[in-house]
């Protein structure tokens, strides 16, 4: 029997498509060189010195780049990640503070400066380990190398549910533990006692025998001169008192009284506000625009033409957007005027029908196993918009040869480097000041942040600071969407209701192999990617590829169960390895949801099981169809095995939000194209789930199997669409194969 779990599957052959792949970018560079634990502290000394000086400029003593202890016992943790509300900064602080034995009420977290010295080493190191499943490869390589390379690569990215499981476990826990040892060593010398007689608690080193204690603040100066142990022993989880606690998130108080400052809230004296419209057909250029109607609007100061966009600069947002709306710019279509939602699906279907795959993964002789009459089903999903609530907004000011930019992005360092490229300035002359982010879900990743280039171009030609705000209309029309994708699935069954062969042919821009895991153990499986690229920019949308792949596989497994005449939970069980985590999660959700118990007429239950980012989530949804044809979700039961979790309540919030985002996209969301341009214009025609549609009962349970820590920000999303579609089939006998459900309800 072939096993198709992530670690054992054959790697996909590289796709034929050119260009930088999301993960290949990370792995490609890191794989060559190896790993390092402690940021710059053991890398080159110049970078170390300048970073240390920078952190200590307002007092305190710095340890391994990421931590500073003040003489007053204050503890400052520098996070290389962007907390977008997922609580990652609080979680990272919990991990470091736990190993440091810090007094929690003295801990604060700030964003690490967007400078190469603060590149995210833990991320680079662990990405390699995660993707290859062979951490031994990197363990023998000199530590200093990866620091250097990560800085060359400008990694300061938040994504892939990586903050805690990589940066936290690889870097922050070790930094906390090593710093604690340095504090103990310093205290032992000062108290003239053996180090092993000392204990630590609440930011004190304690010598119980003599009843003496020293504050971390009074030890920090000397301890900071010691070199840190690069393989300190970490605590046993039974000793935890900060980790695994539902500690209140540090960022929340400022988010209830209006004091939190997001990128869009930034302001400096003499600042102007700009807004922009890019070519509606992506790939087009600005061909002409009469600027007079905008300049006639009171408060408008300038109309700036960019290669593919027109921007209006004014005293405020209202005159800027009024000026922009007064314009009738003409754009070319870049030869993309014939592209539509229908034409993309047709092209994708043609590619799959032709059968010339760009990459293939899996195992076994699928062709033979499928036989002459396999069971077949075709599925389609649309482009999805991220709909982060804070539209893109960056402020930039070019003065005396220096460019400063303020705002919120998922990779501050890459933001800076992009501004360096566009401005032609030296890296030393460009500073990016990271601010709080009003949602992202993958939209603010460095690969798609065209606003950085736009605001840089504006600032370089304006004598005053300028804040560029995208309208919601621009945000909807110029997305980095979850790809529109189609799939054709085939499988054959034995008389004993067992799958003999399973094929998943899917068409979209990139292979989904890096992100998705097929959990079932079957004799023969094939996953074939057919690369189709439209004119639209596609990217990471919360849970990256796992939403569409989860929908395809878990819908089809349901269809196969019904074809076999077997209960969908039992059918899945029979194709999972005995004793596996997947099986345990599935059994748990069946038990907790009351699977198999009677339901009112017209209501059905559906199940789905999806692993993404090393976290396994199983879900049972109870749903019916209302008189208006719209699905009504009554109850969602979810079981999560993320291995272990750092902050249970924050993890719970991520799963809740993930389920709601999954339901929202399954029920109502779609970006569609006509004549090469996006048809939706704002949130009025891109319906997002609201309070009234959110199920009243959402039971969420964590199993905490102790396996390696999985992600928590993304894995909550994928099961909702297939679990709902399967529930609707159980309720109505009608199979949903195209999303969103709303479109079919109306049809």
């Amino acid at each position, binding site marked *: 029997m072939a096993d198709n779990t992530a670690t054992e599957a054959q790697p996909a052959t590289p796709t034929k498509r050119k260009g930088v792949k999301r993960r290949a970018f990370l792995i490609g560079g890191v794989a060559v060189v190896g790993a390092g634990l402690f940021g710059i502290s053991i890398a080159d000394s110049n970078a170390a010195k300048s970073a240390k000086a920078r952190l200590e400029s307002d007092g305190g003593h710095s340890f391994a780049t990421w931590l500073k202890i003040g003489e007053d016992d204050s503890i400052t943790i520098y996070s290389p990640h962007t907390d977008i509300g997922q609580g990652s900064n609080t979680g990272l602080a919990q991990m470091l503070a736990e190993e440091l034995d810090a007094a929690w009420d003295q801990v604060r977290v700030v964003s690490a400066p967007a400078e190469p010295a603060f590149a995210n080493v833990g991320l680079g190191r662990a990405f390699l380990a995660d993707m290859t499943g062979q951490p031994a490869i990197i363990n023998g390589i000199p530590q200093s190398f990866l620091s250097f390379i990560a800085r060359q690569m400008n990694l300061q990215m938040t994504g892939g549910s990586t903050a805690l499981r990589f940066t936290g476990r690889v870097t922050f826990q070790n930094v906390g533990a090593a710093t604690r040892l340095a504090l103990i060593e310093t205290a032992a010398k000062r108290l003239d006692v053996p180090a092993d007689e000392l204990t630590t608690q609440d930011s004190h080193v304690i010598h119980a025998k003599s009843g003496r204690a020293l504050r971390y603040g009074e030890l920090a100066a000397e301890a900071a001169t010691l070199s840190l142990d690069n393989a300190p022993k970490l605590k046993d989880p039974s000793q935890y008192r900060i980790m695994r606690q539902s500690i209140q998130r540090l960022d929340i108080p400022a988010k209830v009284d209006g004091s939190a400052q997001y990128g869009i809230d930034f302001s400096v004296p003499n600042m102007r506000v700009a807004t922009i419209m890019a070519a509606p057909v992506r790939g087009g250029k600005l061909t002409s625009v009469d600027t007079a109607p905008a300049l006639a609007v009171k408060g408008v100061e300038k109309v700036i033409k960019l290669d593919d966009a027109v921007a209006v600069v004014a005293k405020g947002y209202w005159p800027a957007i009024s000026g922009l709306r007064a314009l009738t710019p003409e754009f070319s279509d870049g030869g993309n005027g014939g592209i539509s939602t229908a034409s993309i699906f047709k092209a994708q279907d043609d590619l799959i029908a032709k059968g010339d795959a760009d990459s293939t993964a899996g195992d076994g002789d699928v062709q033979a196993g499928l036989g002459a009459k396999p069971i077949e089903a075709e599925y389609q999903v649309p482009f999805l918009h991220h709909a982060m609530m804070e539209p893109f907004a960056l402020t930039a000011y070019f003065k005396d040869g220096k460019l400063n930019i303020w705002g919120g992005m998922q990779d501050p360092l890459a933001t800076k480097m992009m501004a360096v490229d566009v401005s032609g300035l030296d890296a030393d002359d460009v500073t990016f000041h990271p601010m709080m982010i009003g949602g992202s879900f993958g939209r603010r990743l460095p690969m798609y942040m065209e606003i950085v280039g736009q605001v840089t171009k504006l600032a370089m030609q304006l004598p005053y600071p300028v804040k560029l705000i995208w309208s919601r209309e621009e945000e909807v029309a110029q997305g980095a969407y979850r790809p529109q994708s189609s799939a054709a699935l085939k499988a054959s069954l034995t008389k004993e209701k067992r799958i003999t062969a399973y094929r998943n042919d899917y068409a979209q821009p990139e292979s989904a192999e890096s992100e998705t895991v097929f959990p079932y153990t079957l004799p023969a499986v094939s996953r074939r990617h057919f690369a189709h690229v439209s004119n639209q920019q596609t990217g990471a949308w919360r849970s990256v590829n796992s939403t569409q792949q989860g929908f395809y596989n878990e819908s089809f497994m349901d269809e196969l169960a019904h074809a076999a005449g077997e209960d969908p939970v039992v059918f899945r069980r029979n194709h999972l390895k005995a004793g596996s985590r997947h099986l345990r999660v599935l059994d748990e959700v069946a038990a907790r949801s009351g699977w198999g118990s009677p339901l009112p007429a017209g209501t059905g239950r559906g199940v789905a099981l999806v692993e993404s980012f090393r976290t396994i989530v199983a879900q049972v949804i109870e749903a019916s169809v209302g008189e208006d044809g719209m699905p009504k979700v009554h109850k969602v039961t979810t079981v999560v095995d993320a291995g272990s979790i750092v902050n249970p309540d924050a993890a719970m919030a991520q799963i809740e939000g993930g389920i709601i*985002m999954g339901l929202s996209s399954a029920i109502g969301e779609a970006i569609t194209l006509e004549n090469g341009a996006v048809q939706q214009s704002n949130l009025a025609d891109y319906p997002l789930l609201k309070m009234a549609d959110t199920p009243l009962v959402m039971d969420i349970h964590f199993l905490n199997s102790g396996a390696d820590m999985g992600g928590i920000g993304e894995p909550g999303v994928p099961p909702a669409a297939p679990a709902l579609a399967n529930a609707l089939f159980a309720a109505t006998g009608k199979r949903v194969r195209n999303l969103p459900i709303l479109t079919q309800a109306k049809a």
Partner: protein
Amino acid sequence: MKRRYEWELICMAIQTSINGKPVALSAEPDTPLLWVIREELGLTGTKFGCGIAACGACTVHVNGEPTRSCSVPVSEVAGKSITTIEGLKSADGTLHAVQKAWISAQVPQCGYCQSGQIMAAVALIKKTGSPSDAQIDEAMTNICRCGTYPRIRKAIHAATGQAAKAAKPAEGAA
């Protein structure tokens, strides 16, 4: 001459009250209240989300009524009393009961929509006392992309002494 010009300006200005303080606004009359609050008064707790009153991130109170300020010209609020998220705290800085409930339930994720959510919730509670789930569904139409709805519901129940209901939506914490 100069003096007369200033007098005219004052006459043209729109008089209103923000968070209990009288203000004279110089914005063009068609400017949405949202942008006057954010850019002229510098109160950035009220957010821009969509500009078409679809998301509610810009919700403030106008004479106590929850109002989507992105779609109300400032000329329409002349002589009215406006409260923003910054005006919810009491004079001594104590948080409003709803703000406290928001922290207890750990409602915000990215937090961007939460000023609007809180303003909508405060208005709902003022009107209904202790709102039922159906009343919450009807009144709380603001969008939260992070999906904090179960916690918003829980916080509204908790703020109005409906502890049992507050515990219901998110049980089973590990």
